[in-house]
């Protein structure tokens, strides 16, 4: 699709949304409050929607119910202590939160990570992607009224969590990444077990594909719902599968791997031209399957050697500024670290994916029906901790 055609389509979509809202039977407006505690909001997002009959005239998300002040707290903690905190930003894929921060600190310290550590990092990164997206794949079914997928998701997600726990000791918050490498090596027998889990996860993807793709209700409720054209997605800073579902072929893992080993793997970036809720679900499903293949390749090619570079016992990061972003399960997550040569960072700006991803909701929810609000929220896929930080 050329740019002009895309822009044209965006214009038509926006005009249609305005027309639908204004011309049809004008009823007395109503304000609907969804949240802050609502099953569809994955936590504590609150949406204030002004309705005209069954249609949303304006929707405004209210955040902050989960704001914990990470950026301020990071300023009063040492570098190793910060990783404990930032685990809890996106609590479904915790390990992935640590990686960009550690990479930024390593850039400033000019530490070279041993190859084995980089590979294991990438394996755990992809495992946390599986643990994260698996829940989305099931949860989206629940939001649309299909209860079965979420049971499948919780069941199969446990296998991935078991593998993460076997390495790191934590199901949720591993705190395993260190400046200069990893805390420990893989346990014995872990590689073979993980291969088995990858097969299970692929079966899980197939099951969900059977259950939901082609399901009439699922397609009717997702196709054409919540279309985000590429230029809107770019100007709102959407990232991850949300951006790729709008047809932008961009993945930090391929374009800027930044210390992780994605450039040595054989894999594919999935995109979808439609930009609707179905496309976002489809892209994430493909990515989950792709991630299992990537993990298998990495298990095959895992180099030997130490997992920790020589770093001082007390970590002081030289003065400087670094920004490192990685392709986290939810999208691009970056840390802008400003150091002044102290034990802790001077300022950490956390660029979290969900904050940008959800900022498009006022635009995309104009003119949709009330049930579509839930579909759009579910398909944009956010974690509250990742919005509010």
């Amino acid at each position, binding site marked *: 699709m050329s740019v002009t055609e895309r822009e044209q389509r965006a214009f038509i979509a926006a005009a249609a949304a305005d027309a639908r809202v204004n011309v049809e039977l004008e009823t007395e407006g109503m304000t609907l409050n969804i949240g802050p505690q609502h099953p569809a909001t994955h936590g504590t997002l609150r949406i204030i929607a002004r309705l005209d009959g069954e249609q949303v005239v304006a929707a405004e998300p209210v955040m902050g*119910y*989960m704001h*914990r002040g990470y950026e301020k*707290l990071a300023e009063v903690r040492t570098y190793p202590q910060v990783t404990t905190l930032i685990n809890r930003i996106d*609590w479904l894929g915790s390990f992935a939160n640590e990686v960009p921060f550690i990479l930024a600190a390593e850039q400033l310290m000019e530490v070279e990570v041993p190859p084995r550590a980089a590979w294991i990092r990438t394996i755990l990164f992809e495992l946390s992607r599986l643990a994260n997206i698996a829940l989305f794949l099931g949860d989206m079914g629940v939001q649309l009224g299909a209860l079965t997928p979420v049971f499948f998701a919780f069941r199969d997600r446990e296998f991935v969590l078991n593998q993460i726990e076997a390495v790191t000791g934590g199901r949720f918050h591993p705190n395993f990444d260190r400046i200069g490498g990893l805390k420990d090596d893989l346990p014995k027998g872990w590689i073979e077990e993980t291969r088995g889990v990858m097969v299970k996860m692929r079966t899980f993807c197939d099951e969900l594909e059977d259950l939901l793709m082609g399901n009439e209700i699922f397609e009717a409720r997702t196709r054409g719902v919540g279309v985000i054209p590429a230029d809107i997605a770019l100007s709102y800073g959407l990232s991850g599968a949300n951006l790729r579902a709008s047809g932008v072929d961009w993945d930090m893992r391929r374009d800027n791997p930044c210390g992780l080993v994605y450039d040595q793997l054989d894999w594919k970036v999935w995109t979808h031209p439609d930009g609707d809720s179905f496309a976002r679900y489809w892209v994430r499903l493909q990515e989950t399957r792709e991630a299992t293949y990537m993990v298998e390749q990495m298990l095959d090619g895992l180099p030997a050697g130490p997992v920790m570079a020589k770093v001082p016992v007390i970590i002081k990061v030289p003065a400087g500024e670094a920004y490192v972003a990685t392709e986290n399960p939810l999208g691009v997550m970056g840390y802008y670290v400003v150091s002044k040569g102290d034990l802790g960072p001077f300022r950490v700006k956390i660029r979290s994916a969900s904050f940008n991803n959800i900022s498009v909701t006022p635009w995309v929810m104009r003119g949709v029906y009330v049930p579509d609000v839930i579909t759009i929220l579910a398909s944009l896929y956010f974690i509250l901790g990742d919005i509010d930080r």
Partner: protein
Amino acid sequence: MGLVESGKMPAPLTKLLNIGRKYSLWVYQWGLACCAIEMGAAFGSPRYDVMRLGVIPFPASPRQADLVVVSGTVTDKMVPSILRLYEQMPDPKYVISMGSCANCGGPYWDSYSVTKGIDQIIPVDVYVPGCPPRPEALLEGIVLLQERIANEDMTARWKGDPIVVG
């Protein structure tokens, strides 16, 4: 129910009533943060299967619930909502505080926006420590709460000390 409130109920009847309450705990899931996922794993996943304990995790509204599990970080912005929904629950009501954040602020003990402990605003029956606690820990908390309900003197409902798992 006047009999219960007057505190003059015969002991065998109290016991019977307590067994009934113990095995039909309707729990409202107040999932806030990371702990919400572990709570979801405990309540929603086939592996942990909370319903075998007689706990029904389905009420869509606190007005139908006997027990609320507050799991996750409570912020000052969230406190009014929690208080409001707690007040909507019918008596006798129980509260499980799950996770370090709900217990005492946890890793955000020095934050400017986090409430340091849910017990500042509502009475808590069981504290489940951990960051986040494993689903098994939450199940143990529920079992301890059930023991407490089984031996409960209805009139002394609010006099007991909170239970700490672990």
